[in-house]
Each structure stands twice: as structure tokens, then as C-alpha cells.
């Protein structure tokens, strides 16, 4: 299971909506307890691809976020990005570029603008498993 505070979810949602029609992206950090992950902080980064179909994290912002995590005693847990026009599930491109099998990959679908959907996935090779995200 992976948990996400509602306040942090709102940050993801607002950032993704603000960046439409482009994909938005960022990082997640928190604590690991056994098999559970607890996201405590989300980072809103720049999609340097500025595309509605692709994203790449800004390396400088990525570095700054990693340092911030360390200073705050948080572990890097993975990343998040939005799908402006497609469902909340990893695309072939997402799977191909998921190099860290320990990471969680959150995908926010804004396909239905009135009903955003956020899921978290474990990706290993071509297999993606829904991690059962709980927004609390």
C-alpha cells in the first residue's frame, strides 16, 4: 500500500491542471515502513520536454529536490506525472523508461477533466502492478 496526504494530492492536481495541455511531472518522497510507503512531500518539477505526450524531469530541479529530501530526512519514493489525454496507466514509453524497480510511479489522468484519476504503479520490465494508492 502507498499513502498520499490529501494536501499533497491537491498540489499534484493543481500543478497538472495549470500545465495543461502539457504533461506535468515531479517527485515523491516520504517514509518506508515494511511493505508500505507513506508519501509525505511531493515536488513539482518542470517538464523540460514541454509536451503533451512526453515528460523529462529538469535535472537541476531534480538535484535540488534530492538534497531537500535528504535535509528533511525523507527517502526518494519515485515520481509522478500526468496524462492529459489518456488513462491512469503506464504507457509503453513509461515502462521503457522506468529504470528503478524500487520506485513508485504515480500517474494522474486528466482525460476526464471533471474526474481526475490518480494511481500508483510498481513497474518492472514490461509488468506494471497497481500499488493501491490511498489518498487520506
Amino acid at each position, binding site marked *: 500500500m502507498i499513502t498520499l496526504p490529501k494536501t499533497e494530492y491537491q498540489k499534484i492536481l493543481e500543478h497538472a491542471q495549470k500545465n495543461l495541455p502539457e504533461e506535468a511531472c515531479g517527485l515523491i518522497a516520504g517514509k518506508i515502513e515494511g511493505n508500505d510507503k507513506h508519501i509525505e512531500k511531493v515536488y513539482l518539477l518542470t517538464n523540460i520536454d514541454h509536451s503533451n505526450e512526453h515528460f*523529462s524531469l529538469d*535535472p537541476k530541479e531534480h538535484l535540488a529536490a534530492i538534497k531537500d529530501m*535528504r535535509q528533511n530526512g525523507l527517502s526518494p519514493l519515485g515520481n509522478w*506525472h500526468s496524462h492529459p489525454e489518456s488513462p491512469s496507466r503506464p504507457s509503453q514509453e513509461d515502462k521503457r*523508461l522506468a529504470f528503478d524497480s524500487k520506485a513508485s510511479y504515480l500517474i494522474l489522468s486528466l482525460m476526464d477533466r471533471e474526474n481526475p484519476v490518480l494511481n500508483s504503479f510498481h513497474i518492472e520490465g514490461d509488468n506494471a502492478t497497481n500499488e493501491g494508492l490511498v489518498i487520506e
Partner: protein
Amino acid sequence: MFITVAGNKKEVKDGLTVAELIEQEKVETPQYVTVSVNDEFVENGNFATTALKDGDNVEFLYFMGGGQ
């Protein structure tokens, strides 16, 4: 000499290059890793020729990207 790697201080041999450090740290899929030394990014093509110095602060960042 001593350097800091991902926040952890460690002793390494003098003149260690970024490429050697990547191998020593068993970094997975190094072709997709960005390296910064003292907050300056090192070009991938310069890993083998970039020698580290005592006190350097090294970070490894995995490329993160995707597409819908």
C-alpha cells in the same frame, strides 16, 4: 582522499574518475544516470576523464521520463 557520494562520506583512491566511481558504486544502467560534482553536471562523455578531488560532493540522478 574523502568524497561525499549521495550524502555519504567515503574514502576513495586519489584521482578516482567519475567512471571508476560509477563502477565502484555498482550504479545500475549508468547510461541513464546524470552525475553532478559540486552541483555541476558532468557530460556523459567526460566521465572517464573527470578526476575527483578531495572533498568533492557527488550525486547520481537517474533519468526520469515517460510519455502517455
